[in-house]
């Protein structure tokens, strides 16, 4: 199984997100994460979908997406040549007096921002790769994670690659 980042340029019209996600369901593919936003040209939206599959499955996903009439361009991005990030917000429990300081240290190490410090909880915003978010989650787990919200990956291939 490999992880793949797909960048899909679609017509900015209602119902396209439904069609794309429906394709994944009906063809038995997985969506790991999805993010959608309008592009510099308001006629188009860009979807970034991350997915898992073997090489053959990923190739098939790309072809089926490409076949869709509403998709203008479908690319599998090369991880090495791509800037890809996901925004995540963690709400973490504060039990001991030292927890706040510890979590601040952890956040600093990951370049995360600390928001909304309360008596019994703290919010941390981390923009990073999914792997880094997962690592942060593991380190924050012992404090007690109350909630997590994630946006899905946004990705752009570097120029000249």
């Amino acid at each position, binding site marked *: 199984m490999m992880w793949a980042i797909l960048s899909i340029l*679609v017509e900015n019209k209602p119902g396209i997100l439904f*069609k794309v996600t429906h394709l994944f369901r009906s063809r038995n593919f997985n969506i790991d994460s999805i993010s959608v936003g309008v592009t510099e040209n308001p006629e188009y939206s860009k979807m970034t979908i991350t997915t898992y599959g073997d090489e053959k499955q990923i190739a098939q996903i790309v072809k089926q997406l*490409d076949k*869709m*009439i509403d*998709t203008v361009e479908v690319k599998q991005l090369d991880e090495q040549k791509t800037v890809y990030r996901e925004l995540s917000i963690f709400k973490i429990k504060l039990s001991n007096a030292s927890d706040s300081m510890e979590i601040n240290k952890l956040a600093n190490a990951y370049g995360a921002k600390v928001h909304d410090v309360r008596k019994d909880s703290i919010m941390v915003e981390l923009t990073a790769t999914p792997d880094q978010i997962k690592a942060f989650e593991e380190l924050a787990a012992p404090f007690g994670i109350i909630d997590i919200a994630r946006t899905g990956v946004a990705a752009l291939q570097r120029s000249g690659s």
Partner: protein
Amino acid sequence: METMTGAKALMTAMEKEGVKQVFGLPGGANLPMYDEFARCNIRHILVRHEQSAAHMADGFGRVSRKPGVCFATSGPGATNILTGIATAQADSAPMIAVTGQVPVAMIGRDAFQESDIIGMANPVVKYAFQPRKAEEIPEVVKKGFFIAETGRPGPVLIDIPKDVQQNEAEMIFPDEFKIRGYHPWTDPDIVNVEKAIDMLLQAQKPVILAGGGTIISSAFAELQAISELLMIPVVTTFKGKGSFPETHPLSLGPIGMHGHAEANKVMSEADCVLAIGTRFSDRSVGTFEAFEKKLKIIHMDVDPAEIGKNQTTNIAVVGDVRASLRIMVKMLMQKAIKNTQETPWLKHVKETKEYWKENLKLHPGEMGAAKILRKLRELLPAESIITTEVGQHQMWASLFYDVIQPGTFFSSTGLGTMGWGFPAAIGAKVARPDIPVVDIAGDGSFSMTENSLATAVLEDIPVIVFLLNNFTLGMVAQWQRTFYDRRMIGVDQGKCPDYVKLAESYGAQGIRAQSMDELDKAIKTALNSDVATVIDIPIDPEEDVLPFVAPGTSLSDMILPS
């Protein structure tokens, strides 16, 4: 520019596309478009159930290679045509389905006869439109026809809210339009065609597998030229049946679950296959792993997403298969390649064919399926069009009815929709009124859309229903006999209805044929009649379709008649 209603614009745009008739059924939400039939030159053919309207449009589209058009109202009318749309999608048939919808302001409020047909149909259409303003209609129709008939054809749904049909607008009927994400044509892949020739020439045991795409693109002459120049035997998928004359010495017929024994045998022994316009359906190839083992695959298809979907391909040639095959023929001519020697492989193929011709055990009775279908073949003109229903009779037709003229055999092969054959025959007859059209039917399947007899009679569309009647859902019964220890559940149809009386009650002709003599007379009578005819042929309910490749096994594991 002209001011008119959306409904009028719809009909005008369809006339511009050359539409001569619409199969359909009116209701509250499509009355504005129905009212336009009073003011245009398009014929309306009334059905008794919307599913049949879709199958008629499908049959018309497959035969004429132009999209057939069906109309249905909103809600249940729309959901009723869904099966027909899904059938067309599964078999890549061009179709335009136009549904009425509740007014725009009512959408999403669970209005009377509202259904989210766009949402429901999405996975089974090539594309769906829901114009929200009357002035969108001309371009939507133009794009719809273009999408339905180009590339890999398919059904397009146009769902029009009632107020959009009624509203007036300044209409522009465009000659040009742009669909940015749709590229139905690719340049012929000359390099890979050349590689394919080399691979075929190097193969010891090559075979050509012609699929439905060969028929859709009318690549009959090209296919025959390549087979004859390279002396390569031709097997087909069931959907590709009749893409190559089945009376040709190099023809082996369809492979698959109920393929010809010789075709399955030769296919499983081959070392290289030129597969043309096929998706390698499980019904054709058995298990994917066993099929591709020891086999070099050259895959030609218009749909790039089919390459590598079910089978690993050695050489892929993406593009219209007729264009690709033409290049192949040209290259063979230029290189003056013409095989004339009988190779050991070809000798073996001929022997295999001969062996099965002599040794496949057939039903011993006078009214066995093989004898019945061979009689039909004997009496029908070569150009006659066949449609089939779905079930045992369909597979017997595949086994025992030889297609002589390519592109004259049609069936619901992908979705396997019972009830398809009869309305599809009506659609086919509308496309080709000059030639006989016969629906090879079974009683279970025919009974699903038998009320299309009303359409055939009232609209004067004289097709022949050739009904192999075993009073049973025969294919299910066969599986219960074979895999469920003869526990026969839910398959007995009784002698109900009496199909002769049924036909007569609609004003059609009903003839029962219980012997070969009666059958001979019945077929001749039907061919000379100008009214729809049902020939009811009672057969043995225990007759199985054999050979049979059980699901999940490979083509070399055929169950044969004992």
